[in-house]
């Protein structure tokens, strides 16, 4: 729950703007003390959740704390006169306002991107077959050459990224030979109690499709080697195993 919320923040300003909106505070009238506390609480919460707090977040925390102390102390010069100065919050407020504008622009762009993705175009045609002299293809300047090579690298990188993402690391599976040995061992034990053993009893606990398949293939191999007799009354029904009569 929290993780989703925290991951959503695109940086310290994003978080601060969120907190301000949440507290219904105007960017130009930040209650520094209150918001600093909330901001730092949030960072602590992130730390508690073992989420790495980026240094940028810490920097803004420092800015807020400095601002807070600045607000508390009247500015006086050496002669003890109050220095009249601008609201110390102005700089931060302006930066936040700028950030909010950009966020808004990003939203608008996002909507347009979505909308115009429905317009399809053809890529530039490969004109090489229409050119009189094939040599012209090689008339590329340095920048084009670099761009082409970059494109090639990118494509490769993309493929690498996909294979990396989609080749899930898989638990090592038992081979059929291993499974046969295991089934032989458990059959040995079970045959002491009864002359018939169900195939399903030989499956590992909570078998998945792969487990069933391997066990079944092992069974087929055992039947072929005449180690065991098997009988199935109906399709998809239980398979009953007996010792081979040959013995």
């Amino acid at each position, binding site marked *: 729950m929290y993780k989703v919320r925290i991951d959503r923040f695109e940086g310290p300003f994003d978080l601060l703007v969120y907190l301000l909106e949440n507290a219904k505070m105007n960017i130009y*009238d930040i209650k520094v003390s209150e918001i600093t506390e909330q901001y730092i609480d949030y960072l602590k919460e992130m730390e508690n959740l073992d989420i790495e707090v980026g240094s*940028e977040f810490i920097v803004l925390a420092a800015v807020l704390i400095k601002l807070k102390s600045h607000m508390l102390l*009247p500015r006086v010069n050496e002669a003890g006169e109050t220095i009249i100065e601008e609201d110390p919050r102005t700089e931060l407020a302006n930066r936040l306002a700028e950030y909010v504008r950009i966020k808004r622009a990003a939203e608008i762009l*996002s909507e347009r*991107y979505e909308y115009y993705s429905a317009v399809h175009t053809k890529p530039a045609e490969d004109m090489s077959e229409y050119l009189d002299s094939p040599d012209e293809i090689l008339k590329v300047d340095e920048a084009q050459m670099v761009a082409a090579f970059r494109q090639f690298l990118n494509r490769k990188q993309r493929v690498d990224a996909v294979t990396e993402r989609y080749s899930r690391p898989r638990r090592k599976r038992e081979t059929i030979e291993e499974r046969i040995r295991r089934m032989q061992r458990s059959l040995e034990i079970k045959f002491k109690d009864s002359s018939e053993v169900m195939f399903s009893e030989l499956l590992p606990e909570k078998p998945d499709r792969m487990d069933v398949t391997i066990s079944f293939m092992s069974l087929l191999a055992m039947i072929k080697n005449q180690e065991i007799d098997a009988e199935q009354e109906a399709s998809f029904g239980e398979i009953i195993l007996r010792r081979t009569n040959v013995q």
Partner: protein
Amino acid sequence: MYSKKTMKSALESMMFMWGEALSVKDAADVLETSKAEVRELFAELKTEYDMQGRGIRIREVDDAFGFVTHIENDMFIKKLCTPVRVKRLSQAALEVLAIVAYRQPVSRGEIDSIRGIKSERVLDGLMDKGLIEAVGRSEGVGRPIIYGTTREFLAKFGFTTLDELPEIEEFENTSRSGSPELHEQLALDFDGEELSVDKNTADNTMNEETDNEN
């Protein structure tokens, strides 16, 4: 000099061959006429396609014209060939893109400063996607690379030129002096201190601030 009819017909054929948007300049060179005339002919063609409700439309991007599919036919195209789903841009990418679009040409430092966080990777990603490009170097300290948006950006976001970027309404600047809390807080602080700050000075401070802002 070719007749208007011939030139329009030629433009259509050239656009078809070219695939991507054909720049007004290239077309003018071929037709041996002015860019203004070509622009006008392109615009006429575009209107004709729109009026006739064609499935192919002409789109203008950055003084170039090219064929595109009609936006409402998206569902049919998707059914026909299931184009690779366009990956949505991440929030970070959209923010950086917005900064580059609205503040271009802009350096990485400026982008970082507006977002309050480093944007290098996002910037690289946008360059790979061809939405932004380096457009030169700033005159400033260190002569950093400055970035701008590409024609691809205009096309993907449905703009003809950068002038069409929608205006972002200003954040409503509510006056600070309207906040009673601040007055109270400041007054308290002044009172709490042993300093000989008389009420007038404090009031002046407030007034000054208010004035400054207005």
